[in-house]
């Protein structure tokens, strides 16, 4: 991984961990967070798009969704 990428990732993780205790979203305030537009999901549409993009491009991964071995190009 390039140095810049390592630094950005490390800063992001540290910032996330350091501030985790500061977030005070109460259970009754989570209505918007439960909206389907706010969820990092792996819907069938997202999985298929990821699958075929990885079949066309040289990179993969990073978003925690599933891909698969694939066919004739």
């Amino acid at each position, binding site marked *: *991984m*390039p140095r810049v*990428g390592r630094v*950005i*990732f490390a800063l*992001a*993780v540290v910032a*996330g*961990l350091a*501030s*985790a*205790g500061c*977030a*005070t*979203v*109460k*259970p009754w*305030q*989570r*209505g*918007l*967070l*439960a*909206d*389907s*537009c*706010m*969820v*990092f*999901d*792996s*819907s*069938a*549409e997202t999985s*298929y*798009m990821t699958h*075929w*993009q*990885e*079949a*066309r*491009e*040289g*990179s*993969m*991964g*990073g*978003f*925690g*969704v*599933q*891909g*698969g*071995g*694939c*066919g*004739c*190009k």
Partner: protein
Amino acid sequence: MALTSVVLVVAAAGYNWAQNQLDLSFHAFQDKRGVTVLSPDADFSKDFSDRTNLKVKFGVDSISAASNSCARCHPDGANNGRVVGSASVTRKYGDSKVTVGGEFSKEMFYTATTGLASISRDLNNANTTVAAGFAFSLNQPVLHPSRQTESQRSMDTYVSLTQSWTKGTVTQFGYELNQINGYQTNPFLRTSVNSVLTTGNSPDARTRHAVSARLRQALPAETFLEVDYRRYHDNWSLNSSTLALGLSHHFGDTIVAGGTYRYYTQTGTYFYKPSYTGSPTYFTGDFRLFPFDAGSVTGHIELTPKGPFLNMPAGSSLTLEYERYRSTTGFVAGIFTGGIRIPLK
């Protein structure tokens, strides 16, 4: 034949527990070469208790018309088919969830078998979720037209941190490490070596890193912003960046519509050249290892009527999506997806 490794890792959002539902999707892909892929698939999710959930997926790819590589030997066209099935079980232990599962896919000249395990845990009153997953895949390409079979082993590790910042802001940071050992040459894509078209030769080991940052932000007037960024690097010196920006909007209680723009750019591998002379150790004709940029635009709409519709129970939804993809290599493709989600008792 694409020797893409199978990667099957946990989706790490972790906020919503599973529901009993059936998702039926139909995907249609067509590119400017005339290659068409029709892919129906079904996802079934069932809670067996308040702590245990089963997910089963079955899909088919029906690939018609000849690609550039197939057309050399099959000028009248060559069809292919792929069948994929997967299953996973998730069990809750307090604020933690553990998932184990596997996937198997089979097609002409390629078989892939994957096992996976993952764990996630909610912290800080569910405002923070940490997750980790591991997958091992055995991929077995057949070097058509010979019957020789090669093997490739892929190990994949993924960690993520999901954080709710406010009642309308959530982020996720992820890191994925993938190690592939074994045969990784594309047996069907050729390049010019001393003016002779020759199947490539790629290294037998590849280490891949990807870091990602994602944001979901609720905006005024029932509108939502989606931002995804990924930086990728591997030891073949292929680097890439991906940025996707999307907006979605609720039109009343029954319609959600939106669009996404995605930009992708990558360098070539260290051994990529348009053509080769002499006796190179590594050489490739695989378009995935070339330098190029790509952009795509996606539009989607989801309808969830309040009552039953199309003989389906209340709560069912219909999703339509279309993506247009264009790269600087001249590749252009359109992808249509239609899906139905049916809640089950």
